[in-house]
């Protein structure tokens, strides 16, 4: 078929079959962790979980263009896919879900999905929305100041764009042409608030021009398209051309969190309609069309990842809880800190 005769999209992007299968596996891992976490929540073993399903394409697509160990990640709570690419393991994810002592993000102090790991360059974020946007600009300023060949990438929802911090962060980054990439995962809702009550424009990317940076809209269910715009933004940033605002059109298949009831604000039909554009199915089809994958190997990978997730859950569940005696620690630096 066509993919054989002309250069395939992934080839044009310089992505090898190994790269593609890694990306696919990350997407599948995110999805299976999501489903397993919700089961843990219903079983009463996880008081609070944050779904990702639907966002895997834009998260893994954009994140895969970065360079672990070099670039810095500023994800938000929805970004399970991003932190998997950044290097958190399913086991570490579930240490957070079960708020265990070894949870790398916070040792069980923050809610699950409040990511962080200095070792992996994942910057800790809080619950308050959009506060990490100026942090990304400051990190990018420090990168340039220190002559690092690196960028800071920050992810957020379309609701976050309404906060003053979002505005202040983008403005500062644009003024100083900083190596930072702003990635908006526009899933049409901020909990229950639809986009038309969040802003009077169709595309968040429209705002980029007002700051003096390029704005790009991309189909979040197309993982390769997301990879491509991120790769280009990375090149711009490294070339000293400044920040880029990327808007990924996506959709959240599940409730906002395990505490939410999305039936109060959107119809089942609407959700079902969006599921037809599942980024994982779409990418699977692409891989099969390009003879990089078949149903057999797909099943094998599925079983393998499923087993990995089940093992992670079992191990994390048995891990030690935080010691209450530590609750007063780390308000300020201790000997070994800094």
């Amino acid at each position, binding site marked *: 078929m066509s993919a054989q005769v002309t250069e395939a999209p992934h080839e044009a992007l310089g992505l090898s079959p190994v790269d593609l299968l890694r990306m696919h596996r990350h997407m599948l891992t995110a999805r299976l962790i999501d489903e397993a976490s919700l089961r843990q929540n219903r079983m009463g073993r996880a*008081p*609070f979980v944050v779904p990702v399903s639907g966002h895997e394409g834009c998260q893994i697509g954009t994140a895969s263009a970065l360079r672990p160990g070099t670039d810095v990640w500023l994800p938000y709570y929805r970004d399970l896919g991003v932190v998997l690419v950044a290097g958190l393991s399913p086991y570490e994810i579930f240490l957070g879900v079960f*708020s*265990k002592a070894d949870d790398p993000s*916070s040792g*069980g*102090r*923050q*809610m*699950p999905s*409040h990511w962080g790991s200095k070792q992996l360059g994942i910057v800790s974020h*809080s*619950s*308050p*929305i*959009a506060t990490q946007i100026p942090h990304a600009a400051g990190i990018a300023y420090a990168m340039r100041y220190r002559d690092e060949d690196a960028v800071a990438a920050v992810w957020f929802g379309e*609701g*976050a764009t*309404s*906060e*003053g*911090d979002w505005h202040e962060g983008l403005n500062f980054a644009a003024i100083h042409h900083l190596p930072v990439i702003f990635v908006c995962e526009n899933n049409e809702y*901020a*909990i*229950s*608030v639809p986009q038309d*009550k*969040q*802003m009077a424009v169709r595309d968040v990317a429209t705002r980029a021009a007002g700051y003096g940076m390029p704005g790009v809209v991309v189909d979040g269910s197309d993982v390769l398209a997301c990879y491509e715009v991120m790769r280009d933004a990375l090149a711009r940033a490294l070339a000293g051309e400044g920040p880029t605002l990327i808007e990924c059109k996506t959709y959240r298949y599940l409730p906002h969190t395990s*505490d939410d009831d999305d039936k*109060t*604000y959107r119809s089942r039909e609407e959700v079902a309609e969006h599921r037809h554009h599942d980024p994982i199915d779409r990418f699977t089809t692409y891989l099969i069309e390009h003879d990089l994958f078949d149903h057999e190997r797909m099943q094998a990978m599925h079983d393998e990842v499923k087993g990995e997730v089940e093992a992670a859950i079992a191990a994390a569940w048995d891990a030690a*809880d*935080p*010691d*209450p005696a*530590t*609750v*007063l620690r780390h*308000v300020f630096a201790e000997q070994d800190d800094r």
Partner: protein
Amino acid sequence: MSATNVVTAIRDALHGEMAADDRLVLLGEDVGARGGVFKVTQGFVDDFGEQRVIDTPLAESGIVGVAIGMALHGLIPIAEIEFADFIHPAFDQIVSEAARMRYRTNGDWGCPMVIRAPCGGGIHGALYHSQSIEAFYAHVPGLKVVMPSTPADAAGLLRAAIRDPDPVLFLEHKKSYRAVSGEVPEGDHVEPIGVADIKRAGTDLTVITYGYELHRCLEAADRLAADEGIEAEIVDVRTLAPLDTATILASVRSTSRALVVYEDNRTYGAGAEIAATVAEEAMFELDAPIVRVGGPDIPAMPYAAALEHYYTEPSPDHLYVAMRELARF
């Protein structure tokens, strides 16, 4: 009288005020179709329409700032901050604008508005869904800070807040929403802002508290009375600003012992003002040092059950023990 829980008492009072006065508008995140994350405004958008029940953008400073504008032009806005932990971006609008509008205009412009915020911990909300914020705002002249702990007080004080000519920060302890039930007077019952309430009469010591700690203190006091016949008088501050020092001092003078209990981290917390006031006004009438029991000086409650429990119950029966020790001093 009818028995109901705190969240229902607030919803009913709010609904009644909305129905009675169309100058009232609600604005906040998810207050419309979703009815608020705690369902306080469930069904309101159907009853009052989108013009009066406004799902705002995700911007707390804007929510309060827009509400101030509404208040300046004839409306009585009731802004909801989804969690008190997220009120911080609005600090400037509340402190510099709402609270100072009347003073800075020498009485020309006023700012009648209410800001509702679910606060407090113990519901597994972690660092950013468990905070106590009253100490920051009680210190601001021009702002009233109210924190009811029972359904009756919640309904009566909310009506008072809505009818107050000045900005009122109305704090609702989210653990009390469904955990606390009680009688609510029928009809247009209003509780005055600035008046503390003795929730338990006693002669052996005075416990000054507010918020969900009130219920922990009441529980401990009843056990202490049953176990040892020690009778604690419990003063529910209810309004942090303006503080009802008269009621607090009268009780302390009658028992000669003062214990101040609050959930917020202890240092520079609201309990400091209460303890300082007692020390200045009634020190020589005390038979024991003033004692404060506040939360640990850490940034709100951690998530893990074991850690969160340490915050609310640092030691078994810590309030029971504190009361007994003070009574026996």
